[in-house]
């Protein structure tokens, strides 16, 4: 039988969420309301706000690459965790398999680096 539980975690999350939701709503209720057309405009250092596309506009495609590489390494580290935790109970075979895995993923990393996918400008 386990001697721990996730209950307190959920409860703590509920406190945090409740507090955040309460604050956000309370802030809207407590403050004054003085409508002003300029105030509701986007803030751009005093100049006329530039037209902003409906739906948030478009973002540079560079971020797609970052997110994809993030997933790749995320999954790599996800495999590393159980390996690290159970390593003492497993032995040499797991180590060899893990080194192979890391090397294979490293091929992808080296390729991306070489092609300049890690450069930002």
């Amino acid at each position, binding site marked *: 039988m386990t001697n721990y539980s996730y209950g307190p975690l959920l409860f703590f999350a509920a406190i945090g969420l409740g507090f955040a939701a309460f604050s956000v709503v309370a802030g809207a209720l407590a403050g004054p309301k003085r409508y002003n057309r300029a105030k509701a405009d986007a803030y751009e250092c005093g*100049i006329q706000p530039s037209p902003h596309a409906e739906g948030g506009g478009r973002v540079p495609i560079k971020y797609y690459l970052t997110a994809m*590489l*993030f*997933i790749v390494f*995320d*999954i790599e580290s*996800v495999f590393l965790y159980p390996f690290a935790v159970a390593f003492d109970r497993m032995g040499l075979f797991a180590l060899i*398999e893990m080194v192979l*895995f890391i090397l294979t993923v490293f091929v992808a990393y080296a390729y991306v680096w070489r092609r300049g996918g890690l450069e930002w400008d």
Partner: protein
Amino acid sequence: MKLGGAESTLFALAAPLSVIGALALLFARKAVHAAMGMALTMVVLGIFYIAQQAEFLGVIQIFVYSGAVMMLFLFVIMLVGVDSSDSLVETIRGQRWAGLLLGLALAALGLATIGKATFPAGTGLDRANSQGNVSGIARLIFGNYVWVFEATSALLITAALGAMMLAHRERLSERPSQADWSRARIKSGRNVAGLPAPGVYARHNAVDTPALLPDGSTSELSISRVLKARGQVATADKELAISQELEGETGDMTRRGNGDDK
């Protein structure tokens, strides 16, 4: 199978949340709202896994799917800039009806199968978790499924390759560094100290007001090209007039003759 008291309470609370998330995915008008609905479903799924004592899996579900994959979705949605103003007219005739029909058929099939299924008590859970849940997973990864695990690395290579093919723009020449820019500026001998900053006046502190040069004229260089093209450049006339008026009041004799001698 019987659920424990705490588990059934959790299920009763969380299951509607996951359904709401799934429905938001289907019916939300804005793509970002749909993606957030999906993220909610993913998180709740992770909580369900944990409730079933697949703790590592549950946390990974939140870590990878909600944290990484949905982030990618969100970026892609923002990238494409889809929103409610886009046309939702179906291009293939009868698609909607066919989709509805097939969906209903799938639902009927699923209900029929699940309805017939029986749920005996789970076996082997304690043995699988005897060394702890994470070690149990490790034993499986480096035991029965070691080939699948190694194949995953090939899959990751494919993912990185695909992303590079889709999203990477090859740079044809070397990128000029900050030092290169500075060197080029000095070599050309123009604007060595950088372009002048736009005007900063007490009344109007903004980038759309050109800087005033010592002779009272305005500096074209201090204004962004974009603002000029949009026709949003403010003039400094008013500020100039005020400053000259003030100077006149204080008896400053250095004023120039551009329009202030009455």
